[in-house]
């Protein structure tokens, strides 16, 4: 499938420190691409470089074959974006804010502002001043401004940041709907791994500006081993036994019991071992593999 965006060897230095280090990614048409990394990993810096907000120290970015350096106007025409918190002129209405952006977008349809207001569900409130909007409404307006030029690629930096669970779900559903019904390609950077797992089909994880992993979410989760929680009355004995078991690759003591990572299909053997050693097992709870666990494994710990 054709690539919408090609990022090659992107590098950015601040005070001689590489905050983005030779990063290369490729995003295909229709992808909903999760861009993950701990705080300070270089996600926002990468996005700023992709949008021409800050200069590239080296590397290249192409969108639909257009280079950011040589064909900037054609390049940026293909992108809609929200960078960090969506900011607007609070003393203007949502309609006026969108109209200002439409004035800077050549070839835009006359009724496109009304169209995007309807897509994001702001109809009825579009003439209200933006300063009266909730954060959720501002996020929706942010998505509306990103959709205005009908771009090939939408870049959303932390689109659910600061929202309550209801607001998060609304934005998540909207992104899903836009991807499925309208076929938009997305890059979504987020701290909320649960969101990324639900929305994205592909992810990349970066750490200290370097690419750690780029894969389809489905493949990532499938290749993981089983995770099982064991609750027992003989916790110490169980830990001693499981630590020496060849089938257990990882063990963690938790409040209610033990969390173990085992080879797929080895659970029966583990249970049998526990019973044969007279360990009183209360519950064996299989845990669902998640992107979160993989993320912590690859980035080396909880996020800041």
């Amino acid at each position: 499938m054709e690539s919408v965006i090609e990022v090659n060897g992107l590098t950015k230095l601040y005070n001689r420190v590489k905050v983005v280090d030779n990063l290369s990614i490729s995003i295909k048409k229709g992808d909903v691409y999760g861009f993950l990394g701990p705080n300070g990993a270089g996600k926002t810096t990468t996005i700023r470089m992709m949008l021409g907000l800050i200069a590239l120290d080296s590397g290249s970015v192409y969108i639909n074959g257009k280079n950011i350096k040589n064909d900037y106007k054609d390049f940026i025409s293909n992108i809609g974006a929200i960078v960090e918190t969506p900011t607007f002129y609070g003393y203007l209405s949502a309609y006026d804010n969108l109209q200002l952006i439409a004035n800077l977008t050549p070839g835009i349809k006359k009724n496109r502002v009304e169209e995007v207001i309807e897509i994001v569900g702001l109809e009825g409130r579009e003439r209200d001043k933006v300063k009266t909007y909730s954060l959720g409404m501002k996020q929706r307006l942010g998505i509306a401004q990103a959709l205005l030029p009908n771009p090939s690629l939408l870049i959303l930096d932390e689109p659910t940041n600061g929202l309550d669970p209801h607001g998060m779900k609304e934005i998540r559903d909207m992104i899903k709907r836009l991807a499925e019904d309208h076929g938009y390609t997305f890059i979504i950077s987020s701290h909320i791994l649960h969101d990324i797992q639900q929305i994205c089909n592909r992810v990349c994880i970066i750490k200290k500006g370097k690419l750690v992993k780029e894969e389809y979410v489905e493949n990532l989760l499938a290749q993981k081993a089983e995770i099982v929680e064991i609750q027992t009355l003989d916790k110490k004995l169980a830990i001693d036994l499981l630590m020496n078991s060849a089938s257990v690759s990882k063990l963690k003591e938790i409040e209610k019991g033990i969390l173990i990572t085992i080879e797929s299909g080895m659970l029966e053997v583990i249970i049998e071992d526990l019973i044969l050693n007279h360990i009183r097992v209360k519950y064996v709870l299989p845990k669902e593999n998640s992107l979160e666990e993989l993320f912590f494994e690859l980035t080396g710990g909880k996020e800041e």
Partner: protein
Amino acid sequence: MMWNIMQNELFKIRKQKTLYVVAFIMLALVVVRVLSLSAEEGISLNGQSLPMVVVCMDITQYMPLFIVIFIANVFTEDYSAGTLKLSIIRPVTRLELLLGKFFAIAVLTLSINMFILISAYVIGTITGGWGSCIVIPSFLLESAGYSSQGEITVATITGILMTISSVILETFVQLGFAAVILLLALCINSIVGVIGIGLFIYAIFLVAMQILAKHNPIYLISSTYDICLLPLGILEINSVIIKLITAVAYLAVFLLASCTLFKKKELVA
């Protein structure tokens, strides 16, 4: 595209209170000028004469202060609030964006100057009648450095053309000052900082002009005195040309520096 950027900026300015507050303050200053002339000098200027006094004294002195505020609003606030990104990520070059915004400041400055001029015609006519000719009072000539001339009268049509051309030329000179403040606004990301330092620069221009040499062309402020007096035949054309060249030089050098800086500026806000 630059035209669209300028339209956007003017639309935003129209929707804010700052414009109306500035217009009101300038209007109030015209009224104060009429009252003070009447109280202190015993002068009652007619509707044709008041505008020239207002151009030479009020527009020249006070508009640069408001230019500092407008530039802080159009450039610095847009950057620090993060709204500049909305324009940058559209198919607009940084050069177009900067010049579009600067032209909006130019249109705004000219519009306010013209508004004050028309207001001065109206207020002068209400308070002193229309009169038969323009009377340029001696205090204006003296404050411009041309003493012992007494008051001078000019025919109506000539006087009106002279007054309007003075406003246009003064606007041009003010834009030279605006270019200086623009460069400052691109270097400092705080509105308070830009306004504070901008007013300090204005004060330096004023003090330098007063202390060192009133007619030295390097001081942009208050050039209008000379420009206004050109048609009266008491000033040589060379002096005006030097002042206009100075304004062009300020405009060119500081706009060029601003364009270069803005092109390389990392937008992290």
